[in-house]
């Protein structure tokens, strides 16, 4: 493996915006100039089952999948999905759960995925401007304001230790 890789696993249940969150993260990493791969399993999982998506970025990425025990970050949108995915986290890796955001600060509950991305972003070498650009282009224009607010609330909450 050449250079350092960042491995992120995003998990939750079908319909929660897991894949959307990983799309945004991957988009930001591309904008920041990294090699990026993202992998997910669709199909049966659409019907409310467990869904997870792997995002890897760095100088050169080969396998699109994060191996168990090698995730630097595990972002989980639904508390029941922590245990089924915990084995992906490396020793000392960072687990981010809905506890990382204060639900009262979210103008729209549906932006939990974006708020958790905000919390994740505080740990990553990706510029805030690229995050906001990805959020602006990744959703319908009318959602941007809520998403920006959710993202910043997650990002700043994380920085100040909530």
């Amino acid at each position: 493996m050449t250079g350092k890789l960042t491995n992120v696993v995003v998990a939750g249940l079908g319909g929660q915006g897991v894949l959307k969150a990983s799309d945004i993260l991957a988009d930001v990493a591309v904008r920041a100039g990294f090699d990026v791969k993202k992998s997910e399993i669709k199909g049966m999982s659409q019907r409310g089952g467990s869904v997870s998506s792997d995002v890897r970025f760095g100088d050169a990425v080969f396998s699109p999948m994060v191996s168990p025990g090698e995730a630097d970050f595990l972002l989980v949108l639904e508390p029941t999905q922590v245990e089924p995915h915990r084995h992906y986290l490396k020793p000392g890796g960072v687990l981010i759960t809905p506890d990382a955001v204060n639900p009262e600060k979210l103008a729209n509950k549906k932006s939990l995925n974006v708020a958790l991305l905000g919390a994740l972003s505080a740990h990553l070498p990706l510029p805030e401007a690229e995050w906001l650009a990805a959020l602006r282009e990744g959703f319908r224009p009318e959602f941007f304001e809520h998403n920006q607010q959710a993202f910043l609330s997650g990002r700043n909450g994380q920085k100040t230790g909530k």
Partner: protein
Amino acid sequence: MPSPKRQLLSGDEAIALAARDAGVALGTGYPGTPSTEILERFSELGGHGQWSPNEKVALEVALGAAFAGARAIVTMKHVGLNVAADPLFTVAYTGVSGGLVVISADDPGMASSQNEQDNRRYAVAAGVPMLEPADSQEAYDFVFAAFEISERWKLPVILRATTRVCHSYTIVQPRSPGGAAKPPHFERDIRGRVMIPAYARPAHKRLRQKLAEIQEWNETSSMNRVVKGGKQFGIITSGISFMHAREAAPKASMLKLGFTYPLPMKKIAKFAKGVDRCVVIEEGDPYLVDAIRAAGIAVEGKAEMYRFGELDVPRVRRILDHDVSAEPAKPPGKPPQLCDGCQYRLVFDSLRKRDCIVAGDIGCYTLGVLQPFEALDSCVCMGASLGVGLGLRHVLPPEQARRVVSVIGDSTFVHSGISGLVEMVYNPPPDGHVLIILDNATTAMTGHQEHPGTGRKLDHEPTNKLVIEDLVRSLGVKRVHVVEPRVGVNDFDRVLGECLASRELCVIIARRPCLLIVKRLRELEACECDTKEVK
């Protein structure tokens, strides 16, 4: 002209973009995970993409386009190629005038399939050249290569992808869209395209001759490349397995095969000779390793336990280490289930309550097998509910036979249930039969695609509509009921009871649009009303 922008694309999206950029005149297919997004994206990009009732028809329509000199693609999941296998084997004989690329999206590990068959076997069995991309850039580039091969040797070409290629997103540098495609034109070639035995015998010889030429050409193809590493250790691999192997053994020499039928055996032999230890890393069946060994080249394969499921980096490490100890079990996630409020819940409640023997089929409703219903007794392939239900009815003792019901979805019925229904009418079991068609007005499981029964095309534009009850009646079925299953109303259960007691041939169409498309349907209908007013 500036070169197009780098994009993060899934393998499916990359294939669609390449098809558009390569001037494909017609894309056909039937939805199936992990292939579905190819035609959808192709259509969004402005390509002419259309769903066919099933993969056999899709391949035949694409073939017609290729006979006319156009470039055509046909997309399907691995099991779809079973349905399309009949034309495939003979198209290898007739060949094509334009370009024909058959995209087979395999599902090792069965993320959303009923088996994990390895379609590389089809390339060998039918004698059709095959390319295997490892990421989205290759998926994009190999579409162009597939057309070049198809047009040079006038043969169909299989582009075989897998779930992790189709559904992984990697960076693609697209080309500028190519020059204008040649205008389609019919040239008569009776001996080449009419496969009566007298013309098919020389056609088979032509095919083998072409394959021999292609094999020689493949020896120097850039689609098979060597990644230089140490001399002690070499890996021969293809598809996504290459990516896992690169990560698991970064210092190994690699022969990465992209053009995997007919195999470049001289190149393989040279590579194997040049390293002290040579291991074949491939997902699924031992296709490469068997072929390479049959050519007299000594290589290591994988233990049988790695034939099952997908490969990943840890599994490749284990194969290289000869580790056959038990693999760590994955913690169970939450299984999928029928949506809350899904009309099928009521149907399966009734079937369970009446202790029916249920021959099931492929779709969302296959989830009726899980708790709390456990109301499905078989699920084999698209359309099998009809035949299996009838066979059970024919031989079971009467008290059991009378409880047998076939259950099939609307899209699956159109795909391959109609022939089964003809069988029901032609060979009725002594106590009749009950067929339930679950009509939710969409192909739900694969992400809500249109089909002939919805009256809308792939791009949701209106077209002629197949009316299922009219079709059923036209075949001579007397008892045809259309029922809307609704909570608090027991119409469905009552009709089911009457049909089971009737000992006649009965078809119940349980009709209610899938909850997940109700909003889209309303928008489409409103839009159509507007158009009508303008006219």
